[in-house]
């Protein structure tokens, strides 16, 4: 471990998020000669799609999707890697603060690249708060985190390409995937499937998923209407082509595609347009030294994230010319993103899922019936406590945006709950609080 001087807190390029976009950005900026820091709140790098397998501290490289190569390139640079740190605040321009159990750091930057990824969209339906009802990405993360699912009956539901990918993971872990329920109609999905066929790499990806899930029923126009159980999930009722079917299961993994994590960008004052962080062709946000790459600029998948990450890393390091060479690839990859959005657009029937007593805010246990009486997010928040819990409205705010068309409050620090000490800048030395940084692969 090198001596941690004050210089270690200062980066020419600081990247927040070590998923594909962040790793690509950090790699390109560092290879271009910048002093780079990459910070992430997960214990290990990889983000969600390359989340490490239990017992490993490196990204999951088992899918042949570039993870191995990118991580090798990143670790060959001198970029400082900070895992397990949550960025929560910007006390003044050019400095962000981050917290990890036991400490706080101030990180100075010339350029910031926001690569905070996406989260699942959860929609409330009766029973969705039962233990063992969780997200699609969530069950994958739990399995990678050590949850044994061999022999467990699992229903996958919701929307998006993640359903197929996770089915493959679960089958590999010897789970019984009872069925996959995609809310989108076959007609809606068809152009997406055709689009896949236009891209050989994606055909391979699609085929691999398909092979693994060959014996798993894949229902379109199907979604869960109720989960049932006695303190723990026992069954789920699926509505499929207008018919209800109750299916017994151990887990219901349900997520309705993805929503970008734009909170950091919003807190920093970057312009948000149509729920995404607005960027120019070189990934620059409305603030000239802040860039954004990957899902926060619009859900676009792995390939687009990697391209955007490279562009942001190069542009941030002043290599605009090199960055521009990637613009054609980016345009092609964005077509895929457009098809993705069209294919998995949510049907309006899903707005009928919550009943009066169905909880929407899980932190404060606020039912849908009491929310509906209000005319805005702010009014509902003030008068029902909706969104006042520790998730700060990330779950219920996303749901009410879809259900009621509400827009959440402006984002203020702290970005997520932190120790009060951290708010008072009780700064911990970097070396005492970053035990797993600079790990060698």
């Amino acid at each position: 471990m090198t001596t941690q001087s004050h210089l270690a807190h200062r980066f020419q390029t600081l990247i927040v998020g070590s998923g594909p976009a962040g790793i690509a950005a950090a790699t390109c900026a560092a290879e271009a000669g910048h002093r780079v820091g990459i910070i992430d709140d997960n214990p290990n790098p990889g983000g969600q799609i390359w989340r490490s397998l239990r017992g490993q501290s490196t990204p999951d490289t088992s899918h042949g999707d570039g993870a191995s190569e990118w991580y090798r390139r990143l670790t060959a640079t001198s970029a400082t890697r900070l895992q397990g740190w949550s960025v929560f605040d910007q006390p003044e321009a050019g400095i962000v603060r981050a917290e990890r159990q036991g400490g706080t750091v101030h990180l100075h930057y010339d350029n910031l690249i926001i690569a905070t990824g996406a989260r699942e969209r959860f929609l409330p339906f009766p029973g969705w708060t039962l233990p063992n009802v969780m997200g699609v990405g969530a069950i994958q993360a739990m399995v990678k985190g050590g949850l044994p699912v061999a022999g467990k009956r699992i229903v996958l539901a919701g929307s998006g390409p993640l359903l197929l990918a996770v089915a493959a993971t679960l089958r590999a872990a010897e789970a019984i995937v009872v069925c996959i329920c995609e809310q989108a109609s076959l007609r809606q999905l068809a152009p997406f499937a055709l689009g896949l066929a236009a891209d050989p790499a994606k055909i391979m990806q699609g085929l691999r998923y398909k092979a693994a899930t060959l014996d798993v029923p894949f229902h379109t126009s199907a979604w869960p209407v109720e989960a049932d159980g006695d303190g723990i999930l026992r069954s789920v009722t699926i509505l499929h082509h207008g018919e209800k079917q109750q299916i017994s299961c151990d887990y219901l993994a349900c997520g309705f595609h993805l929503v970008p994590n734009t909170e950091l960008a919003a807190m920093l004052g970057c312009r948000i347009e149509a729920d995404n962080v607005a960027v120019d062709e070189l990934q620059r946000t409305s603030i000239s030294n802040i860039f954004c790459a990957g899902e926060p600029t619009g859900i676009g998948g792995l390939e687009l994230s990697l391209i955007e990450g490279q562009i942001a890393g190069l542009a941030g390091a002043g290599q605009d010319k090199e960055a521009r060479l990637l613009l054609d690839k980016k345009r092609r990859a964005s077509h895929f993103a457009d098809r993705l959005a069209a294919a998995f657009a949510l049907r309006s029937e899903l707005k009928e899922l919550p009943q009066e007593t169905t909880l929407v805010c899980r932190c404060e246990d606020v039912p849908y019936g009491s929310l509906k009486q209000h005319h805005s997010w702010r009014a509902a928040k003030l008068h029902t406590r909706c969104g006042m819990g520790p998730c700060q409205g990330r779950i219920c705010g996303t749901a009410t945006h879809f259900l009621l068309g509400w827009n959440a409050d402006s984002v203020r620090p702290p970005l997520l709950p932190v120790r009060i000490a951290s708010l008072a800048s009780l700064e911990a030395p970097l070396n005492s609080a970053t035990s797993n940084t600079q790990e060698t692969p």
Partner: protein
Amino acid sequence: MSEQMRPEQIQITIDQQSITVAAGSTVAVAIALAGLNCRTSVTGEPRGPLCAMGICFECRATVNGIAHSRTCQLLCEPAMDIRTQ
């Protein structure tokens, strides 16, 4: 429980009950393996992880005396003391 554990197994305490988990398991997984729920909601419902990626805060528990820790973002460490809340 065997005194001599394989290095890839670590021992932790959940609600004062000693359990052994594979090294590298998240605390959220350990709680599930112990057959427990992470927390009880403000109206008394049992809850477990929803997002498993640090966003939803449903997997909160008290870890080594620190209440409201997100267990999906923490890896089990030897002798960790976990209390559901």
